[in-house]
């Protein structure tokens, strides 16, 4: 049997899983797994170089079960997502080797389970990305959900309850998809990918709506779209460090992949657009776009209120997902490219950010933003990584986040969607505010006494972080490289591809050339530095040599402004954080609880025979009458 390139990749990934499973207890196991991830990456790149040029590569694996064909294949879209998956797994795993691993074991963690869970996640994600029909898609989907659960639940304690919440949401989403699948199967008699198109042709408006809601909702749960976003932040944040880097980078993007595959590619944006909400001018696409926008704004502003670095980042992860969906839903050349490029960009900076925070936790033992500060003098490289990460996250030049957001803005501008545009910008502004809080509270300001002797993160952690930072910068400088991948993915999905150059986008209505922009920016910095340093030498003073309104500062004085960072803003919008979604979630829970109580009561009532009698009466009365 000839192994196709996809087979090789999957075998490699399976082998990684087996290695983690069987020899994952040894200390060298982490390195071995990392190397195997590298092998997967090579296999993936080999695929791009050798066998795949916009077409698809089939796997030689296929089944027929109960009359259903199951097959797996790779195309441009899968490749793009697989690249991010394997890349982030490689770096996260690398990050986890050595120092972090040892400290994890010291704290009673099960490193074997961790490596296995990571490998399992990667493997299942590849399976999902390779799915060649709806059934294999669903299978992959569920596998990914449960693999994610495994990774999330590792840390125990708070993580367990977060993971439990996750699995309830994920199951609900999975069941929605299951229902959608059944609808399609009924309409078309098949679960091949083409069946969706057939089903769409046959179905009426109401059923199509149902289908869009089922699929959109189901996939949206994984993306953390509103109103299904509550689970994500705690679940990702409480995962052991490298795990949260990995999850934050790619896990929830599986939802976007599925949306792209099912709703955009198979369903067709046109069909979605043709679904009108009765009595309103809104169609299903607008609805999705607005959901995306709310997903941008609300989690971003929730992030602003977080006092734990990991939670803050995780909340942003949800918000950034909104940009991706927004771009994809707008579905013109720039929007699609922006959405997909943002997947890549987000993966890079989110992983870098989580790693930096993990490095801080590794050294200081806490990620509480009110218990840190001033670490820049002790961990300068970590600071740089975090800085690069937050510039990317906030979408400012010169990092890669800017390019993808620029594309999304441009598409909204071109399509004339002012409110969505405005909302997207509000999201960005909110991001800037909260990431400043992040970097300020960790790295700037007063260094605490207990962190006086903290040293820089070990190199085993530093190198992947630096690699990621480099990627963030380089893909910001030369967005043409990832855009090439994005273009191939866009073609697969059937969306238009923008004209792109190495430095950015070529367009009649306003181009972007990052090489120039970054060039002048750095030239400007150079000039600024020239002006600045040409003046007299400055004297480095102690951090407590500071203006204190006439008081003398000493080491025991807590002189850091961290709590309630945006007091003025919160004074105005604080009242809007009513936790309506939490309330909703809780009330659903209470409802189930109440019903459950009722049902138990039903079964515990003394007079069981009464039920029998009544049932018999009603049933027979129904027949007779």
């Amino acid at each position: 049997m000839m192994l196709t390139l996809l087979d090789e990749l999957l075998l490699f990934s399976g082998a990684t899983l087996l290695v983690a499973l069987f020899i994952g207890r040894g200390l060298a196991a982490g390195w071995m797994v990392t190397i195997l991830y590298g092998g997967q990456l090579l296999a993936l790149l080999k695929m791009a170089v050798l066998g795949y040029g916009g077409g698809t590569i089939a796997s030689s694996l296929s089944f027929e079960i109960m009359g259903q064909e199951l097959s797996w294949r790779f195309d441009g879209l899968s490749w793009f997502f697989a690249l991010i998956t394997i890349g982030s797994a490689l770096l996260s795993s690398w990050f986890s080797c050595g120092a972090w691993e040892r400290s994890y074991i010291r704290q009673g963690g099960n490193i074997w389970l961790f490596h296995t869970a990571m490998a399992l996640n990667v493997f299942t994600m590849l399976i999902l990305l390779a799915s060649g029909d709806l059934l294999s898609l669903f299978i992959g989907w569920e596998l990914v959900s449960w693999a994610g659960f495994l990774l999330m639940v590792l840390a125990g304690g708070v993580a367990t309850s977060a993971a439990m919440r996750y699995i309830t949401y994920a199951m609900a989403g999975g069941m929605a998809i299951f229902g959608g699948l059944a609808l399609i199967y009924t309409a078309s008699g098949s679960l091949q990918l083409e069946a969706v198109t057939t089903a769409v042709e046959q179905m009426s408006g109401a059923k199509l709506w149902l289908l869009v809601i089922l699929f959109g909702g189901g996939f949206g749960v994984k993306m953390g779209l509103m109103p299904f976003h509550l689970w994500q932040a705690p679940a990702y944040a409480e995962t052991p460090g490298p795990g949260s880097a990995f999850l934050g980078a790619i896990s929830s993007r599986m939802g976007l992949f599925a949306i792209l595959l099912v709703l955009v590619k198979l369903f067709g944006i046109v069909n979605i657009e043709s679904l009108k909400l009765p009595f309103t001018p809104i169609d299903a696409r607008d609805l999705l776009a607005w959901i995306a926008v709310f997903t941008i704004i609300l989690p971003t502003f929730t992030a602003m209120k977080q006092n734990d670095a990991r939670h803050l980042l995780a909340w942003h992860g949800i918000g950034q997902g909104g940009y991706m969906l927004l771009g994809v839903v707008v579905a013109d050349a720039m929007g699609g490219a922006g959405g997909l490029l943002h997947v890549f960009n987000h993966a890079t900076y989110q992983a870098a950010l989580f790693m930096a925070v993990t490095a801080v936790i590794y050294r200081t033992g806490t990620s509480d933003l009110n218990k840190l500060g001033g670490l820049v003098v002790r961990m300068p490289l970590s600071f740089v990584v975090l800085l690069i990460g937050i510039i990317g996250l906030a979408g400012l030049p010169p990092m890669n986040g800017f390019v993808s957001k620029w594309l999304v803005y441009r598409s909204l501008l071109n399509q004339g969607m002012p409110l969505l545009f405005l909302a997207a910008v509000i999201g960005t502004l909110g991001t800037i505010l909260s990431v400043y809080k992040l970097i300020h509270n960790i790295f700037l300001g007063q260094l605490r006494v207990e962190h006086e002797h903290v040293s820089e993160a070990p190199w085993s952690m530093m190198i992947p972080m630096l690699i990621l930072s480099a990627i963030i910068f380089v893909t910001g400088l030369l967005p043409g490289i990832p855009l090439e991948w994005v273009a191939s993915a866009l073609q697969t999905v059937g969306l238009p591809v923008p004209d792109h150059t190495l430095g950015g986008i070529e367009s009649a209505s306003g181009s972007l050339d990052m090489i120039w922009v970054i060039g002048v920016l750095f030239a400007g910095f150079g000039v600024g530095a020239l002006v600045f340093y040409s003046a007299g030498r400055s004297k480095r003073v102690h951090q407590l040599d500071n203006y204190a309104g006439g008081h003398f500062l000493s080491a025991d004085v807590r002189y850091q402004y961290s709590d309630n960072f945006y007091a003025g803003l919160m004074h105005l919008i604080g009242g809007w954080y009513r936790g309506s979604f939490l309330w909703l979630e809780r009330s659903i829970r209470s409802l189930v609880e109440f019903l459950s109580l009722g049902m138990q009561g039903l079964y515990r009532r003394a007079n069981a025979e009464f039920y029998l009698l009544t049932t018999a009466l009603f049933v027979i009365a129904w027949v007779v009458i």
Partner: protein
Amino acid sequence: MIPAVTPELILYTTAIGLIAIGLAGVVLSSHLFRMVLALVIAEAGANLMLVLAGYRWDAVAPILTSRAEPAAMVDPVPQALVLTAIVIGVGIQALAVSILIRIRQRFATLDRKEAAERMDAEIAATLGAPRDISQEAPLGERPLPTLPADQINMRGDSP
């Protein structure tokens, strides 16, 4: 409209009436032994119903005699069935009564509600799970939080 009183009406009414009385008895009685008795009544009704299924006007019992020409005989099958059904009923009743004896010995009561309460309490105690539902208060008034372990037996038996 009053239907004409025919033999079949009387017979069917008796059979079904027995079932209905039995069922009502089971539902209404608050004493376990009476429930068993009501069950016996209901069974009698069902058996009667079964016998009626095989009845023929002007027919004799299905036993061959030396007479040359056999007269019309009633259906023998339901009779055999009823025979079986009755014995089954007896077996079940005997078992029920023996269980009743034990319940009375254990719980010193045959009141339906009380016995159920005791059962719940005992289950809860043996399983170590808190008992969260009382059978007496209506749904809305039941205590939502779980009872602490030391209080489980407070409402149940204190022998």
